[in-house]
């Protein structure tokens, strides 16, 4: 390119790639902003396709006010210790039914008092789980008076 100035003859210069980093940075920032990193490492089998499907779903708003309860079969590497029966996962460890009450209280203590009535508990449950354990969880939630719940489900794309 430096040679170009000396020659009078005009040649097609190489396309300037100087703006390429800018473009890439722009995309990068978009992804950085829109990324939500998974906060908890799932210890149970729960891929996206393991959630039940439904058509009448609503978006879960205000993610900061949502506490999650995961239920499903433990992953392969935990099956030796925990067996293959569905287990409850709170935060990043397996829990028993009786822990749910404490968990809800702890979640509540972290939030502002004014926001407590808007807190939602999202149940992320593998669709093959039996309802027995869910019913028990619901009873625990009622005891903790965490009455707003959300049965996590995927959009059904038609039959």
């Amino acid at each position, binding site marked *: 390119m430096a040679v170009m100035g000396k020659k009078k003859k005009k040649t097609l210069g190489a396309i300037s*790639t*100087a703006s*390429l*980093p800018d473009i*890439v*940075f722009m*995309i*990068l920032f978009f*992804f*950085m902003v*829109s*990324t*939500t*990193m*998974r906060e908890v490492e799932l210890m149970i089998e729960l891929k*996206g396709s393991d959630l*039940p*499907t*439904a*058509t*009448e*779903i*609503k*978006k*879960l708003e205000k*993610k900061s006010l*949502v506490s999650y309860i995961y239920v499903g079969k433990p992953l392969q590497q935990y099956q030796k210790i925990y067996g293959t029966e569905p287990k409850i996962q709170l935060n990043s460890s397996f829990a028993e039914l009786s822990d749910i009450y404490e968990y809800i209280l702890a979640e509540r203590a972290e939030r502002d008092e004014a926001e407590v009535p808007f807190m*939602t508990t*999202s*149940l992320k*449950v*593998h*669709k*093959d*789980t*039996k*309802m*027995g354990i*869910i*019913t*028990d969880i*619901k*009873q625990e*939630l*009622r*005891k903790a*008076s*965490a*009455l*707003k*719940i*959300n*049965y*996590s*489900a*995927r*959009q*059904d794309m038609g039959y």
Partner: protein
Amino acid sequence: MAKRSTPEINASSMADIAFLLLIFFLVTTTMDVDTGIQRQLPPIPENKDQKTDAEVNKRNAYLVQVNSRGNIVVNGEWVNNLEDLREDAKRFINCDRDDDPTLPEMEEITVEGIKGTVKTSKGIISLQNDRGTTYGRYIEVQNELVAAYNEIRNEASKKYFNKPYDELSDEQQGAIRKIYPQRISEAEPKNYGGKE
């Protein structure tokens, strides 16, 4: 010293670095919006004297039972597929009708934003499940019941406001919700089939 200009920093690798970061974020991004069916659990009754589901007038109750095989029974009768359940539930919820002793009682109320009185029904849908029912089936049934409510609300909103429910203002939606409150009760757990 001879004039030695500071060499320009070569920025050509900038793109590479940016690309690397970009790819990292592309891979780790999970843009899942959390969706699901919203539900309100009933509070635990403080005294045992409160009305239980069984005491609600029989014609006002719509008892949906799901057994461990996923079969659906409504008020003691088998329902073979989910579409039938939706239609049947809609018939139960609907209050734009004449009085019928087999359908729930109705009362006239005034709702802000709608002229005159409108009828609302006292019907309650009660959903019971066995401990052995799969969660997937349970959600399917829940979904059908919510869908029945949504369709009925949509019809009502077209009738009163000439617009689908989603396009109504908050007050108008509130008015429709007042006519058709979503009364789906998830009954106290019962154990039908002994051990799971």
